[in-house]
């Protein structure tokens, strides 16, 4: 050819073009590089983000000093109680002699002060409800004054918060308990319908009940008082506490024994239960944990222990649940938190410890003063700690302690929760009221996950592997090319459809035809064998109608017929063996609990979802076993089956194993089937007729309602992280095994 096809270009232009092309090449390679790396980075991001959200659970607490000051005004008298407002800005200090000072926590500036029981000669005081800040004083004339400091919040013009402190006396100026006898040891407890005051003088217990009656006319409350006197067997009563609902009364004597009275009917109080709570030592301090179900006992040996009433077979008994470690030092003050089962403990060396009872952990222990701490309290939101040291120095600390309730033991171990009769694994994450003790054990959820996966594998593994063996090795290629994609398409079926069918169609069906399902387990393989035997006894001419490798198809009508027979006879079998109702027979005669949506349904439905995963990988592994191996075995005279078992399976076993692992991974993470086909109750029971709650289903159920950044929210993220890691590791191992296998085949 003389003329070039492309028009001639000047060298300058050609150079320019070449440059542009090179630049474009660079840009593309750079762009693809960034794009590729960023996609991979996004994938890593999933892991790190989950971890980022879950990590604060384990990050512990920190304490930070905000202010410290000396104050003479606030050092007047001995501190009885300091109430702190919701936002941790104001305090209300009650002295033992009835002085009240409202002051700013930040600098100790006193806003207002008064004597709360003017005209009474005060003889004693009692912090009646540390969580509602109810305070009571007893006077020498036998009357009791009950009061509550309130911090009223209003909003100013520019939306700034204005807090006005005031003192409320909900029961009037005073309530007479025992005329003429000075009040010494007493306690009060307020409730919706009534209020109880218990006061001990020498060895007499005076119970005063104020019943509230709302007037029909103007909604004002009228009080009706009644009182009872009970003779005590013990003298030297040091402390009185009244439990919630005003049902139990605790009296502590000087030797460390606690008298527990049932005062639900004050006119008929039975004999008390006497419990030694001091471990042989004198008890220094007796307090309620929030919710007032648990007692926190501090003895003179500085041991802290938690006690609550446990319902056993012999009735209710006050039981020691756990000893709490708060670190050494002489304990000088203990303050319970208002909304969590936690305590702040101070000692004589100026150390403060944050202790959580359910988690049994000391979240933080730090020295905040170089002298003994006399009094401390923590704000309702547990963010502000106010401390009074011996020499009249006051400290204000900010506490960052978001998730004390999480510890290794709380997440995975058996924990003795309030009002449970023994330590248990429980998941119960939320409830309406503040006194609720969150039960965050992941054990029942993990157990449920494994249980569901186990039953699914029980169904899927034999079917999938047997099926894979037949499809890869015995089946005619033509049939294989149809069967394999058919089974693999199952993998794409939305699990929500499977779950729906399992829950609304299969579960009622199985409940109704239970004997059929169980008889099929035995009858089906038997009938297949019988059919197979008689098939090979047929004359050759008839056997030849169905060529080798198509036998699977022959069995379809057999299985359908046997299945139909089992279902048709189900009711007769039920009538014959199970008195007409297998379900009732299971529950009544065998003592097995039965749910309609149970592990059996999950096994079948999820097994169905897992079959294609295992089948596909196992089939590939078996199919790619080199032919010369099998041919060699056959040539040596082994039957096809013996070749299968002794040559093919050992070679392909790693592939099959990796298929099973991938199937297991899928079963562990499956959400919708479990969500729809079980009752989602977090129980720890391996019973096939009961349901379970899995990690994945639990996330799906609770995540939308979890409050952002709460412990519950983070624990759900932790559950997701656990699932992620578990399946990721499982799949990686399976994948590595599969790649090794591929290399091995490559060499053969």
């Amino acid at each position: 050819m003389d003329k070039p096809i492309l028009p001639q270009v000047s060298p300058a232009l050609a150079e320019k073009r070449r440059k542009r092309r090179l630049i474009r090449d660079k840009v593309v390679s750079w762009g693809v590089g960034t794009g590729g790396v960023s996609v991979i980075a996004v994938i890593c991001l999933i892991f790190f983000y989950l971890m980022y959200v879950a990590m604060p659970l384990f990050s512990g607490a920190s304490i930070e000093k905000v202010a410290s000051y000396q104050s003479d005004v606030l050092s007047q008298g001995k501190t009885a109680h300091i109430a702190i407002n919701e936002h941790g800005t104001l305090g209300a200090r009650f002295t033992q002699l009835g002085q009240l000072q409202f002051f700013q926590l930040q600098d100790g500036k006193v806003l207002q002060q008064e004597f709360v029981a003017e005209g009474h000669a005060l003889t004693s005081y009692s912090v009646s409800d540390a969580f509602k800040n109810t305070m009571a004083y007893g006077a020498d004339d036998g009357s009791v004054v009950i009061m509550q400091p309130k911090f009223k919040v209003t909003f100013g013009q520019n939306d700034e918060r204005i807090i006005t402190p005031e003192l409320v006396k909900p029961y009037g100026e005073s309530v007479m308990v025992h005329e003429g006898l000075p009040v010494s040891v007493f306690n009060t407890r307020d409730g919706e319908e009534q209020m109880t005051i218990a006061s001990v003088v020498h060895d007499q217990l005076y119970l005063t009940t104020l019943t509230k009656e709302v007037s029909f006319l103007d909604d004002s409350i009228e009080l009706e008082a009644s009182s009872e006197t009970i003779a005590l067997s013990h003298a030297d009563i040091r402390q009185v506490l009244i439990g919630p609902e005003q049902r139990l009364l605790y009296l502590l004597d000087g030797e460390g024994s606690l008298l527990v009275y049932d005062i639900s009917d004050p006119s008929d109080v039975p004999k008390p239960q006497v419990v030694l709570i001091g471990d042989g030592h004198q008890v220094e301090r007796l307090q309620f944990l929030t919710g007032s179900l648990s007692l926190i006992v501090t003895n003179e040996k500085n041991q802290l222990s938690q006690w609550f009433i446990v319902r056993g077979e012999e009735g209710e008994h006050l039981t020691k649940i756990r000893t709490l470690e708060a670190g050494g030092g002489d304990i000088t003050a203990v303050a319970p938190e208002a909304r969590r089962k936690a305590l702040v403990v101070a000692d004589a060396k100026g150390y403060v410890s944050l202790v959580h009872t359910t988690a049994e952990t000391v979240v933080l222990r730090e020295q905040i003063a170089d002298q003994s701490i006399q009094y401390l309290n923590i704000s309702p939101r547990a963010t502000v700690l106010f401390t009074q040291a011996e020499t009249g120095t006051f400290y204000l600390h900010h506490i960052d302690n978001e998730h004390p309730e999480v510890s290794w033991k709380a997440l995975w171990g058996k924990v003795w929760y309030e009002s449970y009769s023994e330590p248990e694994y429980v998941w119960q994450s939320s409830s309406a009221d503040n006194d609720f003790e969150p039960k965050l054990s992941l054990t029942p959820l993990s157990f449920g996950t494994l249980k569901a996966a186990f039953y699914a594998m029980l169904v899927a593994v034999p079917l999938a592997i047997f099926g894979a063996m037949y499809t890869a090795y015995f089946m005619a290629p033509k049939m294989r090319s149809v069967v394999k994609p058919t089974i693999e398409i199952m993998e794409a079926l939305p699990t929500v459809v499977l779950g729906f069918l399992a829950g609304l169609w299969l579960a009622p069906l199985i409940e109704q035809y239970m004997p059929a399902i169980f008889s099929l387990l035995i009858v089906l393989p038997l009938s297949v064998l019988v059919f197979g035997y008689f098939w090979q006894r047929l004359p050759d001419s008839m056997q030849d109608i169905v060529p080798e490798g198509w036998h699977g198809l022959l069995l379809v009508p057999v299985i359908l017929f046997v299945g139909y027979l089992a279902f048709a006879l189900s009711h007769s079998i039920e009538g014959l063996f199970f008195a007409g109702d297998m379900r009732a027979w299971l529950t009544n005669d065998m003592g097995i609990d039965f749910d309609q949506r149970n592990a059996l349904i999950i096994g079948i439905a999820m097994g169905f979802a897992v079959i294609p995963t295992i089948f596909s990988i196992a089939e590939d592994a078996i199919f790619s076993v080199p032919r010369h191996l099998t041919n060699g075995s056959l040539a040596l005279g082994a039957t096809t089956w013996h070749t299968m078992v002794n040559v093919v399976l050992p070679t392909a076993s790693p592939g099959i194993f990796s298929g099973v692992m991938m199937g297991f991974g899928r079963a562990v993470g499956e959400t919708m089937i479990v969500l729809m086909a079980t009752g989602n109750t977090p129980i720890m029971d391996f019973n096939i007729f009961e349901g379970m709650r899995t990690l994945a289903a639990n996330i799906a159920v609770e995540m939308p309602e979890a409050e952002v950044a709460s412990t519950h929210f983070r624990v759900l993220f932790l559950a997701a992280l656990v699932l992620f890691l578990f399946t990721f590791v499982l799949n990686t191992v399976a994948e590595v095994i599969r790649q090794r296998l591929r290399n091995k085949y490559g060499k053969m």
Partner: protein
Amino acid sequence: MSQLSLKGWLRSGSPWIWLNAAAVAMSLIAVIGLLGIIAVYGLGYFWPGQVASFEYKENGHTTQVIGEIHEREEVAISRLIEAGYALTDDGGNANRFLIRKGNRQQGADFGWVIEPYMSAVTYPENAAVVERYEWGNAYGFISGIKREGKAVPSTDLQEDLKPLLEKAEHLKAKIDAIEKDSLHSINYQLERLRLQERKWLLSKALTAERQEALASERSDLNAQMSGFDQTLSELRGRQGLDVLVLKLSSGQEIDVPLSVVVRVYYPNQLGVLGKFGFYFTKVWEFLSEDPREANTEGGIFPAIFGTVMMVILMSIFVTPFGVIAAVYLREYSKQGPLTRVIRIAVNNLAGVPSIVYGVFGLGFFVYFLGGSIDSLFFPESYPSPVFGTPGILWASLTLAILTVPVVIVATEEGLSRVPISVREGSLALGATKAETLWNVILPMSSPAMMTGLILAVARAAGEVAPLMLVGVVKLAPTLPLDGDLPFLHLDRKFMHLGFHIYDVGFQSPNVEAARPLVFATAFLLVLVIVILNLASITIRNNLREKYRSIGS
């Protein structure tokens, strides 16, 4: 195969082969049976059932029952006796029927009856089914038509009813158009004005002129609104005039205003052709209408729309990124242990439970990204979140991450199948790497990308668990795409076929009535997904054939 004795047969291992074959057969039966069940129940939903009529004697009372027979089951008589029926046990079984009696304001929609108590079943010619917008179906006989409270004389009630029904339908369509489109649009614009004002207020840019402009726009809109309100109340006044009188099985006559009637039909009169006609009307209604009665009746159009919309958005995100990542892994990065590790990691992500992606999407996209976007760009709508709440954008992004491994794996497979000779040819002609990629490799592997995308779409369409966390709702008042600016509302929540199945099947108050509809929805979803998968398999097979010829 020669004939063997039992012992020889056992020893040869053949029984095991038969058992293996049985496993395959069972798997096949399970797959086909499952698809069959969904298809039968799902397609059967639209078929008009006969309306049966019989007398039912229970505890000495005889009641007339009219309704559709929904289900039949055989129960041992002994069990029925236990359940409190007065029967004599002969050890046999009796039929029990689930009857849809309708007329829900009079009691339960569904009820079980047993055959021994029933008289012979008849199928009266003129039994009517009145589908209503509220209280579900009513079964009975049309006994009259009233207009403004006065009976309209009629010789052929069925014929006379037709034009009236058409009129009522027309009126309802008008009212719906005003309520759903015009009024909604005005409200939306008013809300936008409020947000605009707050935005200016926050940025201290609310001048007097702007305030005036806002006020005038607002008064315009309010005027329009009151105009529509007037038309509406006039239309509503006309709506309640026509009433049909339905005689129920109890003999009681009830007035059914035509405004609440969806349609009236007489299933026992329909011939095969008529039934087919009715069938397709119902199918069309199912595909094109909004749901009614807490999703248990009517159509699933918003769910179909939401699913499609979400999948399209997801494809827009997932395709470029998946392809770029695959190209990077296969063409640009050094093939070493690191690439191998990345490849395994990508592969395994396909096996990570979908709910984990949902949790990630909720935490990262919704709360972190969405929250940041809100505080940066939409301070005016505080405290109600715009993007800081689950919505279709976050849902499609989450699913894009979920399906990106699928696209990467499929594209990589396609890239690896492009013969090395083709690449070398292109490079030898002087093309740069980018030019080879763009002009040779990508076009050749485009069917593979297509396969990947189709598989991704199929997976995304069937996924429910993550969507429950990042944007799906049981009933979305508005579609994510409508006539209000900016037309595409990425922050809106949406409905989804899969979630619809979960919600209606498990959370609805009238599960029995909803079940057929759920089956129909499930059938639609399965159909779409199976078709998508088959398409991808076909494309892949074609691709393999093509390369086999190039490669050789």
